[in-house]
């Protein structure tokens, strides 16, 4: 066991990224400066829905410093028509036709209409002001209700109305039987509000087309270089080999920076046309207004329950507002459907969904994109508890699946092997002394202070059980390449594209342990489509299991290769070769020791090894997720609500999480805290607000779109449960999204508990101070 203590894996190894980033030496796309580089700016729509009747760019084209002005029609001539990345996430929903720059119609405030390329961004912006665009305004379709109205003007003329898709009713288990057996039915209409990623670094791209070679080099802030390459090569009609995508440090993304956006395509086309580099850095106004928004979903839910608090079945109707252009909006409802039973023994479910198009920014992935399943379910559990006068945590403990053999399955099909929801709830109950809190709460109420306790539980496919489906969750297995460099370092090439997840540290920890070198001798290479293996990139909480597992198996394969080479060089059996401390030796013959650097050089020296081993010491490996599957946990919050001002203070926040074996506890806790902070922000602060009549966007600056700061986030107490290992080697699970999935219901539950003397029911996720006062009847609903 003493061997364990010497491992990097499991230790809070300091982030190798930090010295560079914290001293301002990071290299972001905004830092890229190329000779002859030009700057792009976009003329964007000031209205939500209109026909474009005239565009006059003559004055702009003649403005100082302007090199190129492109309208949508002109740009389209240099592109291959097609839906681009939209089709990838649409999952069978119709994909409407639209142009890269709006040409016939604008469909959302901020829709890009004209591209201006100039010698500086200032000059480009000045020229944008000279572009004249006439709009013939159409009524803005701003709500799902409006979209369902057959009289609403079609946002896309090739779609039959603004209802994008209506699913059939999916039935799992005996739904009618469950409702027939039920003692009671609890009904609720639940609304999750539109909010958005708002990463610290906005989107950005530098496109550089070399007319000599016909190659396009793209510096991009992205979660995956290959998706950007695919989207751009497809749109521009270039062979993928002629497109190289590079990514440096990324200042956050949370799902926003997946693939190339319309602006990226426009800049790439402009660079090709001009033969000069073209740079576009999204500014905050563009980012908040247009880049993408998420989460706006509503649910009609019925729960069939017994008087003892058993949840027999659910009937769910979901509506998702996908915004204007295709994003991820039609991909999510099926995930929500699969996941909504969570870790519970709910025996029956019927689920149907409708996706609508509106004149709002497109629906994009945002940290735990399917999270509404957890919010809706965990709200319903508390509403059930309220109906029955039970303690909410007892309702959970009564319904949650326990670990048994063979493992239980969700009624929607997936195995719950390794799920520790019950254990995490029990951990919460023992950390927060609930009986004494209830006494404190009762006493405080007598003095006009309103405290509340909330708990919620969830599981997350990170990457989810294999179940013989090829593995790797929705994006396939993860590939990796490792090379022993001539200086003896292990270089690991991964398609993961860290944007805050510390992969350069964690993968090095795993590979260093498995290969047997100091961590300083492992280098993790990311962000170059010519170098890293093909892959989706970072998303879906797959890095820990998938790329962590690939790192482990890759390091193991590299070690075997090194031993094989050493056995040739030493003329000894491979099983007699020892690798430690950066050198190889024949067991028991210390004098035979050869450094890894020497070995790498020897392998490349002509004639020293058989052809199958000669050359670069390099292996590739892939990992399908193994037997791992779920991460999850339970969170609890204690809040105090000022019922005179509606302000909520989070007094205590407790996490009992299970992401399996911890690679790096400090990094895991950073992910948990960041997710919880965003979840607290979602409930108390963040909302993407539109004027429902005009379609104007009202949250377009950080004065109006309010993010949580350190002042609003309490200390977060974290307890780790490390599940019984399911896989022989790889028991790390993703932990990036969980905090954001579970914090909103935790907080909503706590707030409803605090407001229980007012009989307030919390049916929406966003609870700013004004809304709190409306819920308790202190002010009329506005």
């Amino acid at each position, binding site marked *: 066991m003493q061997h364990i203590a010497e491992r990097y894996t499991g230790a809070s190894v300091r982030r190798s990224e930090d010295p560079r980033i914290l001293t301002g030496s990071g290299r972001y796309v905004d830092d890229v400066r190329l000779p002859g580089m030009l700057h792009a*700016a976009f003329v964007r729509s000031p209205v939500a829905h209109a026909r474009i009747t005239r565009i006059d760019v003559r004055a702009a084209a003649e403005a100082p410093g302007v090199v190129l002005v492109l309208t949508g029609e002109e740009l389209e001539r240099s592109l291959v028509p097609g839906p681009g990345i939209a089709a990838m996430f649409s999952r069978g929903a119709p994909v409407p036709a639209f142009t890269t720059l709006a040409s016939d119609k604008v469909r959302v405030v901020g829709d890009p209409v004209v591209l201006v390329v100039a010698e500086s961004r200032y000059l480009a912006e000045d020229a944008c002001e000279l572009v004249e665009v006439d709009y013939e305004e159409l009524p803005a379709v701003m709500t799902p209700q409006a979209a369902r109205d057959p009289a609403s003007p079609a946002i896309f003329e090739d779609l039959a109305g603004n209802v994008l898709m209506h699913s059939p009713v999916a039935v799992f288990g005996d739904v009618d039987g469950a409702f027939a057996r039920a003692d009671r039915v609890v009904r609720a209409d639940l609304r999750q509000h539109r909010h958005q990623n708002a990463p610290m670094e906005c989107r950005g791209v530098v496109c550089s087309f070399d007319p000599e070679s016909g190659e396009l080099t793209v510096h991009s802030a992205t979660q995956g270089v290959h998706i950007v390459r695919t989207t751009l090569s497809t749109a521009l009609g270039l062979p993928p080999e002629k497109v190289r995508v590079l990514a440096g440090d990324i200042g956050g993304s949370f799902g926003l920076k997946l693939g190339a956006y319309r602006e990226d395509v426009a800049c790439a086309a402009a660079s090709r046309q001009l033969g000069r580099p073209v740079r576009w850095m999204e500014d905050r*106004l563009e980012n908040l207004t247009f880049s993408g928004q998420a989460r706006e979903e509503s649910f009609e839910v019925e729960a069939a329950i017994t008087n003892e608090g058993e949840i027999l079945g659910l009937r769910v109707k979901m509506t998702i507002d996908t915004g204007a252009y295709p994003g991820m909006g039609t991909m999510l409802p099926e995930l929500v459907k699969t996941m909504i039973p969570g870790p519970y023994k709910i025996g029956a479910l019927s689920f149907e969904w409708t996706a609508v198009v509106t004149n709002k920014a497109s629906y994009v992935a945002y940290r735990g994109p399917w999270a509404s399943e957890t919010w809706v379910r965990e709200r319903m559990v508390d509403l059930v508890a309220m109906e029955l006068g039970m303690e909410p945590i007892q309702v959970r403990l009564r319904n949650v699946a326990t670990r048994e053999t063979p493992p239980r399955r969700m009624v929607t099909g997936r195995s719950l092997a390794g799920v520790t929801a019950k254990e995490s709830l029990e951990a919460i109950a023992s950390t927060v002394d609930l009986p004494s809190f209830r006494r404190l709460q009762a006493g405080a109420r007598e003095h006009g202070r309103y405290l509340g306790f909330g708990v919620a539980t969830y599981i997350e496919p990170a990457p989810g059980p294999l179940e013989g489906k090829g593995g790797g969750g929705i994006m396939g297995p993860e590939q990796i390449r490792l090379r022993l460099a001539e200086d003896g370092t292990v270089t690991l090439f991964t398609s993961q594209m860290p944007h805050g997840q510390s992969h350069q540290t964690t993968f090095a920890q795993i590979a260093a342990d498995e290969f047997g070198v100091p961590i300083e001798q492992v280098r993790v290479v990311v962000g170059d489509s010519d170098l890293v293996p093909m892959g989706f990139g970072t998303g879906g909480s797959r890095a820990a299991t998938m790329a962590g597992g690939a790192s482990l198996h890759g390091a193991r394969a590299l070690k075997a290769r090194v031993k094989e080479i050493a056995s040739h060089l030493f003329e000894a059996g491979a099983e007699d070769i020892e690798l430690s401390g950066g050198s190889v030796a024949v067991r028991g013959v210390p004098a035979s020791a050869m450094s890894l650097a020497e070995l790498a050089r020897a392998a490349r020296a002509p004639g020293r090894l058989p052809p199958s081993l000669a050359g670069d010491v390099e292996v590739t490996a892939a990992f399908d997720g193994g037997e791992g599957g779920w991460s999850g946990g339970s969170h609890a919050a204690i809040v105090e609500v000022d019922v005179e001002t509606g302000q909520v203070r989070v007094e205590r926040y407790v996490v009992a999480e299970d992401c399996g074996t911890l690679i790096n506890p400090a990094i895991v806790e950073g992910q948990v805290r960041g997710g919880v902070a965003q979840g607290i922000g979602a409930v108390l602060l963040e909302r993407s607000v539109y004027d429902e009549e005009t379609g104007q966007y009202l949250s377009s600056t950080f004065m109006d779109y309010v993010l949580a700061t350190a002042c609003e986030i309490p200390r977060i107490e974290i307890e780790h449960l490390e599940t019984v290992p399911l896989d022989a080697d790889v028991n790390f699970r993703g932990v990036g999204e969980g905090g954001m999935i579970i914090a909103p219901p935790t907080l909503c539950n706590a707030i409803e508990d605090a407001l229980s003397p007012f009989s307030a029911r919390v049916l929406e996720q966003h609870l700013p101070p004004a809304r709190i006062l409306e819920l308790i009847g202190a002010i009329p609903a506005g």
Partner: protein
Amino acid sequence: MKDAARVGSLTVKPPPFDYSAPDTLEEALFVLGEAGDEARPLAGGQSLVPLLSLRLARPSRLVDLAGITALKALDTAGGHLAVGAMVREREAERDERVRSLAPVLADALPLIGHPAIRSRGTIGGSLSHADPAAELPAVALVLEAELVAESRARGRRSIPAADFFTGFFTTALAPDELLTTLRVPSSAPGTGWAVDEVARRHGDFAIVGAAAMVRLDTSTGRIEEARLALAGVGDTPVRLPETEQMLAGAEPADGAFADAAENTMTRLSPPADVHGSAAYRRHVAGVLARRTLKLAAQRAREAA
């Protein structure tokens, strides 16, 4: 729909402007006099620079006041506090003389933005910008401060705070005129004060802010004088004379403050925005009026 114009021009790069950085007040007033109403003084830039970047402000010339030493003085001659317009908010916040002579101002300063913002933002800049939700305009009202202004054409004049804030982001200053000094009359001994606000987050502009001062009759213990000013409830910071009148002569008891709060609420027609409805602002104005008046009275009693 004040937000519509903002969204209409999606850009965060300032339009072209000329820039002057005078070393003396005389020079600054000369430049402003010459430029007419196309010039804007730059006094810390914590509001103006974002407005420029959004192209919502389009001055032809910025007159940067940062180099004018004469505007950076903080003076207490005769027991009256005089704060130069270019005194940084952070500097005033840390100044013991501000704390002892104008505690209501000292308590308001930490509510402005964050330390980084207060290290650049100036007393005069915030007052001249006249954001109706900002702290300093309401505090100037409750203190019955005098705002000293100067122009090349007309020389120096003193404007009572009550006359200074004339409308939404609008003051009594002429385009060629600069605010040079905030003069705070000394409070009578035994005056209590309180400042409070409700904001979405610490450091945000107040949804509603309140500043109160209360002086008690030392013999009867009744309220001799009460003052109340609110931020975020109208086009300008608002003083509540009727509420104040109600309290004059009253016992400083919970009932009186509750009545005063009710009265306050009836007199407001606050705006609505993404952070709160008019009804919310009116309600919170009542709550903060009650809380600040009560705390101010308590402090007055303790001081007596």
